């Protein structure tokens, strides 16, 4: 059974808000029932949730880590962690929805992997356009790479060179287009801090792309 894959996670524009609110409420209600079944021991009820959010979780993990194999491993583990902790999940409001919680787990898992690799966080005002910047991303699938446009490759490479604490915010804000309120819950940071990091992250991206550092 496959459910509607809701993407992006949240929305802030007013157009069609009431229809989307109703759809979102129905989806949240449906998820609550699935979660209740999972907690009661019906693991199969978790499958539709995985199907629904696999793109989101994998995308976040992929942009955090760079490699598809690692991203798949982190995504799978994030789902398993979520399943094991479902009895503690309290979905209260849109910013505390299951998807938000799932992304939070995935981000933390990805950070664990990055930490274990000892990829250190760059200082706040580091000039990321410098030649010493190291790639966190190494293209892994030649067939996929040839299919991607040059622009997309440059964007991926530039994003991978942005320090983690800016990259994670850019992934959630500009790639997944999550509203700040949800990002605040995912990263447990004040919205002001998030906005500052978004601005700085974007500036780093622009500089990398302008200087050709995204190649």
């Amino acid at each position: 059974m496959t459910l509607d894959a809701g993407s992006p996670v949240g929305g802030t524009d007013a157009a069609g808000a009431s229809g989307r609110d109703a759809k979102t409420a129905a989806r949240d209600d449906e998820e609550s029932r699935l979660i209740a079944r999972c907690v009661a021991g019906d693991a199969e009820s978790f499958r539709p949730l995985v199907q629904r959010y696999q793109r989101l979780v994998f995308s976040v993990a992929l942009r955090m880590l760079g490699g598809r194999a690692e991203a798949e491993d982190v995504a799978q583990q994030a789902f398993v962690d979520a399943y094991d902790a479902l009895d503690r999940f309290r979905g209260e409001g849109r910013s505390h929805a299951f998807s938000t919680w799932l992304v939070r787990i995935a981000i933390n898992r990805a950070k664990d992997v990055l930490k274990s690799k000892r990829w250190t966080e760059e200082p706040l005002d580091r000039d990321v356009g410098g030649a010493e910047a190291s790639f966190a991303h190494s293209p892994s699938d030649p067939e996929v790479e040839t299919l991607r446009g040059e622009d997309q490759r440059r964007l991926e490479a530039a994003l991978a060179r942005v320090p983690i604490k800016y990259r994670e915010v850019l992934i959630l804000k500009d790639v997944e287009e999550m509203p700040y309120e949800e990002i605040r819950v995912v990263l447990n940071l004040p919205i002001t801090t998030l906005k500052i990091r978004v601005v700085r992250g974007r500036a780093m991206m622009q500089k990398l792309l302008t200087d050709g550092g995204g190649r």
Partner: protein
Amino acid sequence: MKCDHEVDDDEGASRPVAGLARLRDVDPPPSLVAGVMRRLAEPRPPSLWRWLRRPWVIQLRLSPLSASGLALGMALAVGLAVRLPRAPKAPIPSASASASASASASVSDSTPPRAAAPVRVRFHLQAKGARRVSLVGTFNQWGADGIVLDPVSDGTTFAGTIELPPGTYEYMFVVDGRWVTDPAAEERRDDGFGRQNALLRL
């Protein structure tokens, strides 16, 4: 909002890098869902949280004298309870999986039309070889642990009685973790996930 940077990113000087949202268009590996479900089926080391939440066995050791006192107290309590006047029992409707499948309907007919008087409903399911059978439904918000049914002396049936206010309820049995629709339910309703909930009208 102003800080040392312009932070009103949606309308100010800082706008998303063109094309960044397109990075969202990734195809997850086809093996991802199967991989998750496989991992879920594998035994995992118990976590501290699960250890804390596991059932605890509390053993009470009593000396012969205190055990006698406790037994006497319990006997007195039972004796008092038996002597107290009791209201006549309401008939017990049954939502069942066996021969008494029509019981719920017949009891609905026989139930006097008293507003919101709770109705005792007996659920039973034949589940030979099952270790644990519980009942979940809209009456307990599909609660995590459900209402555990007791094994009946025939060794294959599990049963339990609950009181419910008049209304319409959906329910299912959970047999050793597997969700089972009451095979004897007279009415069913699609649950939206490819299965059917049993429907009980009181």
